[in-house]
């Protein structure tokens, strides 16, 4: 079977997701300006320990091999280690994303003693100035301390996870060197206009010239760097980057949010992409297998306005979430279309027309911080 026919099989959906993200809580000690889930405060409706274990039982029955745990800051949950151990005990490997605040020397040793566990520490700048501008004051030191503690505990190759922005594109080589210095693995992903990112995206997303820089850097380093396949929109620039080159939303990917709602992917927390809830009758399996939204996403998708572009096979029209939250039609160019079509399309979106992300859990005292305050 060729790669292309495999991809067409995957687009028709799998019996269970390959890449399931589970955000355990909306609570977070940080308030990153690009947070995909607008996290900050815990939601009182979050899944209980017993409910979370039932979901893990279901994922075990579906033979989900591993899950990506995030948040919020997942380590904030008091039952974090209990759920981690339960998952691994049921044969579901865990990769979790953290800002590192709670990885002290003790926790680092405890994490090191567990099998089938990967840790991803978020870092969005190679220095405190670049990083903290996005992730908040003190977050650079926090992440580096966690890395030091994991290294001291001999955890092995943890991952350093970078969201590529206008301000850190030039630091890609330095991120790689930092990862190498720890024997860690670098992961770089695309900035999305989701969650609080809807407000910061226009100022943070890489320029068109930088897109080419990212593409070339990934071509040169792609085999040793993880990307979560997130840069396939860049494939229109030439040779394809490593990966499946497709949007996996609802087909091979999905998100379970802290209150158990199931969305097509981690970047679309909005009613339009909500497929159901793990609390519904039939649980997660029924949502995955039967929800009308997921079944529709598994149907052949129209290239729409991109149909006449010779690059569509390469870029597949880009990211659904990026289009949705910038107010662009889903069957048209990605806002970061390397052919410049996105820029034209964005110019036609009137102010306030883009759908607003939902489930905002931003802490009240910081909710307005992106709006400039004028003196007097």
């Amino acid at each position, binding site marked *: *079977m060729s790669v292309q026919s*495999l991809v067409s*099989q995957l687009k*028709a959906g*799998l*019996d*269970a997701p*390959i890449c399931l993200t589970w955000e355990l809580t909306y609570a977070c000690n940080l308030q990153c300006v690009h947070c995909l889930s607008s996290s900050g405060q815990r939601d009182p409706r979050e899944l209980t320990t017993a409910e979370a274990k039932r979901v893990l039982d279901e994922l075990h029955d579906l*033979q989900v*091999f*591993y899950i990506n745990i995030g948040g919020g800051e997942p380590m904030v949950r008091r039952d974090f280690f209990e759920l981690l151990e339960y998952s691994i005990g049921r*044969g579901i*490997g865990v990769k979790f994303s953290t800002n590192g605040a709670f990885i002290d020397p003790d926790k680092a040793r405890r994490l090191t003693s567990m*099998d*089938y566990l*990967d840790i991803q520490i978020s870092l969005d700048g190679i220095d405190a100035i670049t990083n903290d501008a996005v992730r908040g004051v003190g977050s650079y030191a926090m992440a580096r301390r966690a890395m030091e503690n994991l290294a001291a505990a001999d955890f092995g190759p943890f991952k350093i996870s970078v969201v590529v922005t206008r301000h850190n594109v030039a630091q890609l080589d330095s991120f790689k060197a930092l990862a190498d210095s720890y024997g860690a693995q670098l992961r770089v992903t695309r900035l999305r206009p989701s969650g609080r990112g809807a407000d910061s995206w226009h100022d943070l997303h890489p320029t068109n010239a930088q897109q080419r820089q990212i593409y070339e850097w990934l071509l040169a380093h792609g085999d040793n760097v993880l990307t979560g396949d997130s840069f396939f929109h860049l494939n229109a620039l030439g040779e394809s980057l490593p990966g499946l080159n497709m949007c996996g939303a609802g087909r091979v990917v999905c998100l379970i949010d802290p209150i158990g709602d199931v969305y097509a992917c981690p970047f679309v927390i909005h009613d339009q992409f909500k497929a159901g809830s793990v609390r519904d009758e039939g649980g997660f399996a029924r949502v995955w297998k039967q929800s009308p939204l997921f079944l529709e996403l598994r149907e052949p998708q129209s290239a729409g306005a991109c149909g006449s572009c010779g690059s569509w096979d390469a870029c597949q029209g880009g990211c659904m979430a990026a289009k949705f939250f910038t107010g662009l039609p889903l069957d048209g160019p990605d806002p970061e279309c390397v052919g410049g079509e996105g820029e034209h399309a964005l110019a036609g979106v009137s102010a306030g027309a883009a759908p607003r992300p939902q489930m905002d859990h931003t802490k009240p005292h910081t909710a307005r911080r992106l709006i400039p305050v004028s003196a007097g």
Partner: protein
Amino acid sequence: MTVTLESGLRLHPQVALRPEPFGALAYHYGNRRLVFLKHPDVVSVVRELERHDTVGETLEACGVAALRWPSFVKALDSLHESDVICERDS
């Protein structure tokens, strides 16, 4: 090692197989790699390897026509390369 009809193989102990419409997904818990087994017949052969002494005997038992054996040996070789299957006594 190159897989031949005489090789004695088995599913790697750290690998889990999940049936899918196109064949199966294999996940290696050790190296965290996901491998696509893109043909249902290859999946049945991989599952059966352990019950037979050699690849040849497995293919025979699975009723694979002799004409297709070379391509199965090639497929098994690449699965061995990616540690989805391993030698019996390793």
